[in-house]
């Protein structure tokens, strides 16, 4: 069953074409890892899916919902596509628990008590139940990112988008975030992950997309593409990353 569909998507910033006629389908349960050189458009690719960036041509659909739909349709689409940011973007005036409760209450209309139960369960899942009354400023980067993952999950999305979730973290904090993501993938969550973590791509990813100059240069199983890069461009890129 297709979860995300790109149809001839064109994204421009002014006269700069960032995504150039991209078409593809992502199915339920896939863990898609998106890699590419900086400036290749991989973050933009992800941000177009939940309409944080508007596209100039073509269409993107999540399920039946289109990013070009009316505002209410776009909001519905965003509730189905949870987003995790490079800079966490937790709400600094709220505790970890309140951050996770926020979406269920304000985006899903859940009661306070239900939202609280759900949030506690999710914070337990990411291993932070005992820190739930701390403010984001009192948590480490890895902990903040795990709260952010719980916050995104709390809205009950069909798929999760990760925009370089470990890039702002110290190397020794990355594994705790990657572990949570791996667990999520094993539960069957559909995930699209922009990252430089080739190890994650190989072990957890079910599909690797290499974006270069606004086009999808390669699209296939991670193990094959990584151990046997079909182009010089990918070979060069992998040498620089690893």
């Amino acid at each position, binding site marked *: 069953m297709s979860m995300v569909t790109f149809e001839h998507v064109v994204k421009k910033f002014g006269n700069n074409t960032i995504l150039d006629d991209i078409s593809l389908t992502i199915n339920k349960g896939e863990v898609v890892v998106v890699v590419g050189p900086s400036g290749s458009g991989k973050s933009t690719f992800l941000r177009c899916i939940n309409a944080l960036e508007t596209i100039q041509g073509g269409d993107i659909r999540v399920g039946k919902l289109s990013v070009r739909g009316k505002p209410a349709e776009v*909001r519905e689409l965003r509730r189905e*596509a949870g*987003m995790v940011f490079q800079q966490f973007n*937790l709400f600094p*005036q709220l505790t970890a628990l309140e951050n996770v409760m926020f979406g269920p209450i304000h*985006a899903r209309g859940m009661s306070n008590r239900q939202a609280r139960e759900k949030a506690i369960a999710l914070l337990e899942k990411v291993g932070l139940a005992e820190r739930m009354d701390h403010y984001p400023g009192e948590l480490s980067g890895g902990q903040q990112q795990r709260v952010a993952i719980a916050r995104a999950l709390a*809205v009950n999305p069909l798929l999760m988008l990760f925009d370089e979730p470990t890039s702002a973290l110290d190397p020794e904090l990355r594994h705790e975030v990657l572990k949570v993501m791996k667990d999520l993938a094993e539960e069957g969550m559909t995930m699209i992950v922009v990252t430089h973590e080739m190890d994650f791509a190989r072990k957890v990813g079910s599909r690797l997309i290499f974006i270069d100059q606004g086009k999808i240069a390669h699209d296939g199983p991670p193990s094959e593409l990584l151990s046997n890069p079909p182009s010089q461009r990918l070979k060069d890129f992998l040498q620089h990353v690893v």
Partner: protein
Amino acid sequence: MDFDLSVVWDALPSLWKGTLVTIKITFWGLFGGALLGALAGVIRTYVPGWFSIDIIRQRPLSGILLPLVSMLAQGYILIVRGTPIVVQVMFIYFALPLMVDVRVDGMSAAIATLIINSGAYIAEIVRGALQSVPKGLFEAGQSMGLPFYKILLRIIGPIAFRRMIPALGNQCIISLKDSSLFIVIGVAELTRQGQEIMASNFRAVEIWGAVAVIYLILTGLIALILKTMERRMRIL
């Protein structure tokens, strides 16, 4: 020269009346100014002040209407910040009745002027604070599927408000002191009362000293309230 405390004592009842008028003008002026300023500030922050062919093509009505609203807000701020408050109140009190047939009493003219005047400055304070909140927090709200007003009220607003407090305190104090300029339209506020007593007894030292101390107490109170507010909230 001799300082006669009994002069101050005798003047206190009228000065107190003037103080109440000053407080009333300042309170309602700032209350209205805060509402007007919040509205204009939000418009200036989030509504583009230019026409975009792309947007007009997608949504013709809001594509044309919204930039017009933004230009209106911009014009308002430009005019109010660019003219002295004395001219503004004279305009409302003396010129407006001649242009359109509305007769306003001094009190209403004073409050209206202060609303319009402080609103323009508060709009810029609001805009500055809203723009200082990291864009990622707005996106975090968007990606949960929240509508704009919820993002503004629940996420950006509370953070921006904390950042506004020092500048708002400034504006409250400035507006309180600016209300003394309404002496030019004869409103019986504190400075006007002082002047009238002065005109009858010529005790400049005692009267202006007392008036200054009353202003100092009022502004001190504002500073104290804001300081307490700031201490109770964590600045983020």
